[in-house]
């Protein structure tokens, strides 16, 4: 399989879907002439023209609402938020319009919009620009929320998201854009369904469930723990809503111990949801309470040394793993 960067995999997915279906268009800040704030949309303006690659003003509520309206009349917009932090001015459009119109119109309107952009801390952008929004949006029925961690998943899930008739929130990561990974050859189309977790590594002693940005860090940690005699199974949930409970529960039934790792803040959110499902469906198989390793429960600091402490660290995950194994 060829190697591709995460950002290029996303671009390929958009190109393929825009070529496949001329109702699909991209709108967002700097997506056109600037070639994308993170170059995800590089070359798209030249390829598809200004009607389908639309530079929007700095007015998220406006262009998110425009996309919902466009979807209601039959188009299939992709909205790029420069980062998910800027989705907050558009929160009302996402939560009250995109997520609700299908139900409130008694099924008369479908809202096939993909909202996408980088999520969580981009390193030293301070409290207001370091949101991990999955905890907000996963709480909203009517939205799909996916968060791929590899180029292959990014491409396969984005294609599924664009073809889906419901609003999909597609979370990426600024620090993920540059990572390389296997992606199927051009022409070998791969659609990754929602609600399907990926067992990244098989292990026997402990199941670590995560999604999005922490996953590459956890792959490295699994290698280190292997050296210490701890066999860690790593599950990438990939899709947070819907969530693949079956794969997670099957793994916990095998290992009897679980640590959930996430970058959103610890109060509630999909991390807590995963713990809840495990305690309900694998209760009799748990040898220890399910633990979570997450960001610390404070607004993200600007100072690098403090930020390094607040973002979930491998040391924190390691400590939780050792704790569920009763090693300390």
């Amino acid at each position, binding site marked *: 399989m060829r190697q591709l960067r995460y950002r290029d995999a996303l671009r390929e997915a958009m190109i393929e879907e825009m070529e496949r279906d001329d109702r699909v268009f991209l709108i967002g800040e700097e997506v056109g002439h600037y070639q994308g704030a993170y170059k995800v949309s590089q070359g798209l303006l030249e390829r598809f023209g200004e009607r389908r690659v639309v530079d929007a003003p700095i007015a998220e509520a406006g262009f998110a609402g425009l996309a919902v309206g466009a979807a209601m009349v039959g188009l299939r917009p992709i909205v790029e938020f420069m980062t998910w932090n800027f989705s907050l001015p558009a929160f009302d459009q996402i939560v009250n319009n995109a997520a609700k119109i299908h139900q409130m119109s008694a099924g008369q309107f479908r809202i096939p919009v993909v909202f996408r952009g980088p999520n969580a801390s981009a390193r030293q952008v301070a409290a207001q620009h370091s949101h991990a929004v999955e905890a907000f949006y996963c709480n909203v029925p009517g939205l799909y929320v996916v968060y791929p961690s590899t180029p292959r998943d990014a491409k396969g899930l984005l294609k599924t998201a664009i073809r889906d008739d419901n609003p999909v929130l597609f979370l990426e990561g600024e620090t993920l854009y540059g990572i390389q990974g296997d992606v199927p050859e051009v022409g070998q189309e791969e659609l990754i369904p929602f609600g399907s977790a990926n067992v990244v590594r098989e292990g026997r002693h402990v199941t670590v469930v995560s999604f999005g940005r922490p996953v590459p860090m956890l792959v490295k940690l699994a290698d280190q723990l292997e050296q210490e005699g701890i066999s860690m199974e790593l599950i990438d949930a990939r899709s947070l809503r819907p969530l693949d409970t079956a794969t997670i529960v099957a793994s916990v039934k095998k290992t*009897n111990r679980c640590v959930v790792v996430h970058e959103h803040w610890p109060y509630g959110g999909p991390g807590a949801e995963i713990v809840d499902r495990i305690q309900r469906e694998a*209760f*009799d*198989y*748990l*040898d*220890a309470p399910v633990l979570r390793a997450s960001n610390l429960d404070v607004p993200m600091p600007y100072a690098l040394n403090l930020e390094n402490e607040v973002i979930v660290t491998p040391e924190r995950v390691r400590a939780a793993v050792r704790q569920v194994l*009763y090693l300390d």
Partner: protein
Amino acid sequence: MAKIVGLPKLSPTMEEGTLTRWAKQEGDDVAVDELIAEVETDKATMEWRSFDRTVLLKILAAEGTTVAPDAPVAIFGERGEDISSLLGAQSAPAATPNAPVATPATNVAGSDAQTSAPQVPVGRIAASPSVRRLARERSLDLRGLEGSGPGGRVIQRDLERLAAEQPRAPGEPGSSAPAAAASASARPAPVVVPLSSMRRTIARRLVESKQNVPHFYLTAEVRADSLLEVRKQLNAMLETGGEKLSLNDLLIRICASALRRVPAVNASFMNDAIWQHQVVDVSVAVALPDGLVTPVVRDADKKGLLEIAREVRELASLARQKKLKPEQMSGGTFSISNLGMYGVDEFAAVINPPEGAIVAVGAVREVPVLRDGALHAESRLRLTLSCDHRVVDGAAGAQWLAAVRELIESPLQLML
């Protein structure tokens, strides 16, 4: 002032109690000495009565639950009191003190709950859900298992260590014998009966006895004709009063007299000393549908036959109702167990520690006996004495049996 009250320790050996019935409901007034609840302890169902005039504000342990002494079971106080803070303290994991307290009511104040270190409540085994499932599947008893998890929690590692120490039975779940397991599962599984407190006590005490007490056994066959004749005459006299002496009543008295004659058998091994008992208190094994208890006839050597008969009847009746008090079934110095009525010829009984001996009584049989060249019919009875060899030597046991034989064969001696 409302307070959380722990389960009173209703017997000296009580390690846990089951709340079989709440006599009072939430909101009921409770007068001094009024029945609050009935509690099944290790041997009997005990009454828990109030020391104070109070109101039962909240029941914390439902009927049927088993808890350790002092574990919170109810909140008492004055009518209309706000108990929300107590309820909050009660749900905190640290709210259960496990220090033994002699008084029946233990106040678990909220402040204590916050300052004391988290600890596992006594009587509840802390085990991970996974361990509990494996214990269910493999019929493992987790009691007494030292958990290596926090607060003594039994975790999978502890089971693995246990399994490594004990050779695994073939076909047991978890062993690599899927074929055997499959064929076994096709047959009806055994019915799993949870242990009652009495059954658990019996199991524990008898294992202790057989593991720690070096038993030896002496059997003697004695002529019972004279004893049967005496019993017949006595019962004829008692007939008008509607009372009767059983053979066992007579044997209790005979054993007691023999113990007086051979005091070496009326003794206990108490680790660093032998206790030579000054009283003769005979424990009498009473079978119950779900086990057995051994109520004690005090000073059996000094009591008349009728007195013994009445006492045994009363104790047996209390035992069947599970109303025996702990002091009525502890402190015996010797035991008697009779399976003669079931047609058992002879058997060897397990000593009831710390008693030094127990006699097992078989059935009376009429057998042909050659005497002076002629055939006679004789009633005979076999007695087997189980002795704790740490206190009772063979010769002492034999002397005691000889004394019993003399008394059975010449029961008039009882009158001396």
